[in-house]
């Protein structure tokens, strides 16, 4: 079985600070990481792989996304492809899906595509299903268990009102949530491969994508306004170590609950 992981490099939100006035994230100086759910996707592939299977990782992003692809190699992926080109910049989820599909078609279609349910920065969760649509293959989202069964895979999707257990033949694209597994640890062999393995680079021209087919220019959506809502609130403070203030804090909560018609 050939498995492809779609990976995005994202800012490290644990390092990102919040501007106390505007609530905007201060990304400067923050590191970059592999989108955590994409690591779950990689681990899901590792967990079901057997002899003769291959696991490839594909990413679209700036040149420095190569570091994140090397991390995936250290964690057990066999090979990695980076689609990087100025022409790809500013693309929305549709334009991003177009590039990823071009890479997948060039590599030869895999049996299974796994990716994180969403990225911590864009948070649209749309690229996975859009890639599946452009390839014309089935899709399952919010997957929290994945197993191989004869003729395909069986999986659980965590929905709003319950757990849905499904089976599908291959090919299929699945997007996973964090509770599918524990994050993978690098292996010695993987670390070695991360140093030595070549990251394959694809560009707009190598993928045969022309001007106007990728990036901002090809994106159906346009951001027309950015606003920074005030997120900081002026808290009423209670030092609950003092019994009288603890008393008034509890009193205050009671009042809020009754103001909101809860009590």
């Amino acid at each position: 079985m050939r498995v492809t992981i779609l990976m995005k490099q994202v800012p490290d939100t644990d390092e990102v600070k919040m501007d106390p006035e505007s609530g905007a994230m201060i990304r400067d100086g923050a590191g970059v990481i592999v989108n955590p759910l994409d690591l779950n996707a990689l681990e899901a592939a590792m967990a079901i792989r057997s002899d003769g299977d291959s696991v490839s990782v594909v990413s679209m992003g700036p040149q420095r996304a190569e570091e994140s692809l090397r991390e995936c190699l250290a964690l057990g992926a066999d090979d990695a492809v980076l689609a990087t080109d100025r022409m790809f910049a500013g693309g929305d989820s549709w334009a991003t899906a177009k590039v990823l599909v071009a890479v997948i078609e060039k590599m030869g279609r895999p049996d299974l595509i796994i990716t994180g349910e969403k990225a911590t920065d864009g948070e649209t969760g749309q690229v996975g299903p859009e890639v599946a649509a452009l390839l014309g293959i089935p899709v399952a989202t919010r997957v929290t268990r994945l197993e191989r069964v004869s003729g395909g895979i069986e999986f659980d999707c965590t929905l709003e009102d319950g757990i849905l257990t499904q089976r599908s033949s291959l090919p299929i694209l699945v997007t996973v949530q964090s509770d599918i597994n524990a994050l993978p640890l690098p292996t010695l062999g993987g670390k070695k491969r991360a140093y030595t393995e070549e990251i394959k680079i694809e560009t707009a021209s190598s993928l045969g994508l022309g001007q106007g087919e990728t990036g901002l220019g090809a994106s159906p959506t346009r951001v027309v306004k950015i606003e920074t809502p005030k997120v900081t609130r002026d808290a009423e403070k209670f030092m609950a170590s003092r019994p009288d203030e603890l008393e008034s804090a509890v009193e205050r909560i009671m009042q809020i609950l009754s103001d909101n018609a809860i009590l």
Partner: protein
Amino acid sequence: MIDANRGKNIAANEVWVLGEGSIDGGLSDTVFELSLRARSLADALENYSGERHTVSVILPLDSGTADLARPEEAGRAGADRVVVIKSEGLVFDRAACGKTIAHMAKSSPNGVPKIFIASATAFGRSVMPYAAALLETGLTADCTGLEIDPKSGLLLQTRPAIGGNIMATIKTPNHRPQMATVRPGTFPMPRPDARGHAKVSEFAIPEHLSARTVETVAFSPYSREEGTLKDRDVVISAGRGLRRPEGFKLIARLASLLGAGVGASRPAVEMKWIGYPHQVGLSGQTISPKVYIAAGISGSVQHLAGIQTSGTIIAINRDPEARIFGVSDVAICGDLYEALPKLIERIEAKMGR
């Protein structure tokens, strides 16, 4: 190859809502929420263009449950018509469903709808991108605002971006339909006494779209305790500051008194103190209850981004420097094991227990 007309479909004077059935066989609340919003968008488009715009609910249903839903009820929220698509296994085969609604839009006699919206549920967030890609148009995820720009007649789609700390307004200038998913609970519901019947018709799935590749083996509904946090007026979350997993018993006791949902920070879930459906924040659920109580949660950016639209935020933490105090309305610096039992006592006294 560049096709300049890619996605630039001819658009009809129609606003479509992708509807869902609810687990108990009726229409999901989101159908009413979105139909009412679609009605106001259609009316705004009429003001802009002078032409009447209709509201249609597209309602894929499993043949098993299809007879239970009362689709005409969508008329209470201003929908003109409901198109039911009955097919075995359609709802849970997201790709088949996406293909079917894209096909419906493309084969609609007057052209694709001008606007097509759905709720940002597991269903909407998988089916809509699938359909949008096939229609070669844009889709804005998880919107918290939809308006018609009075100058251009375009749909203004507002969504939280970059961790919910900024609000981005997005347009789809040339491609049709203009598509968006909407965070559930964003818009008001129709008044309980609202009347109206939508015209109901059925769409027969063409042969080439009737195959199913994803087969449902089982569905295990959650118990009320495990259920979604999204429809709760109060959510009480706890984090590492609980210091021990048993602490969630205290949280659950308070929650049951208030009919509240129990939430948790990512660390509490990662330490397996409580299950993932309870995780609040960007990596879990984004919520906006009337009252949010955070006990023993320091407030990572990703957690704060998931709660910042809550009505009143109450935080209890021993650390006076805890980041969560900066986004709180009530900041209680102290031990949750002192504050919460006192609160429980007061509530029980008030309820006469």
